[in-house]
């Protein structure tokens, strides 16, 4: 059974600080997705990582994928309050996007 784990599950950080969220998964997959969810809202796609060594950046967020280590990271640079949300990683078990398994989420709170 595929397991997708995220670490930490809760993160409280001050504005201006840097931090990394980790996503580990237990089976082979070449594709990993990051989503953001604001409280009471739906999910918004952040990044799609398609191969080993893939790196994507958008604003203060940067995601990377190491398929050999089965690890993805979401790095936050100089956090701002607007980044407060829950971040999910998801792994696609199949080549055709038919079976996504989501991690439990990391609830990020950025304090002034």
């Amino acid at each position, binding site marked *: 059974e595929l397991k*997708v784990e995220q670490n930490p599950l809760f993160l409280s950080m001050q504005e201006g600080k840097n931090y990394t969220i980790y996503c580990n998964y237990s089976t082979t997959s070449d*594709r990993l*997705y990051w989503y953001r969810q604001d409280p009471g*809202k*739906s*999910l*918004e*796609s952040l990044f*799609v990582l*398609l191969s080993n060594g893939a790196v994507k950046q958008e604003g203060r967020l940067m995601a990377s994928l190491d398929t050999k280590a089965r690890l993805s990271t979401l790095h936050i640079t100089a956090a701002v309050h607007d980044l407060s949300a829950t971040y*999910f990683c*998801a792994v*696609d078990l*199949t*080549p*055709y*996007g*038919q*079976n*996504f*398994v*989501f*991690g*439990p*989420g990391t609830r990020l709170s950025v304090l002034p």
Partner: protein
Amino acid sequence: NAGVTQTPKFRILKIGQSMTLQCTQDMNHNYMYWYRQDPGMGLKLIYYSVGAGITDKGEVPNGYNVSRSTTEDFPLRLELAAPSQTSVYFCASSYSGGGTDTQYFGPGTRLTVL
């Protein structure tokens, strides 16, 4: 484009009642998905469809049924509602299942079974 729309937004059911959650997308996406999200948890896949007339089970299909008669619509049917089905239900769609395609999510339906 409205994207992915879901109705209703909220619903309270009594144990044993049935209902259909509606999902419509106007992006001409082939793939559609139903997830449930329990409080403080990630999403679990209930059913998915790769095109009209084709559906398959995900991780947690028990107690649910789906149909896909058109590209746009993918309703989820709950038969004999149970308290364990209290959750937020999200519908999602994508053009194809792989590559750079990501899933676009609807706003969700918050269901409570009492």
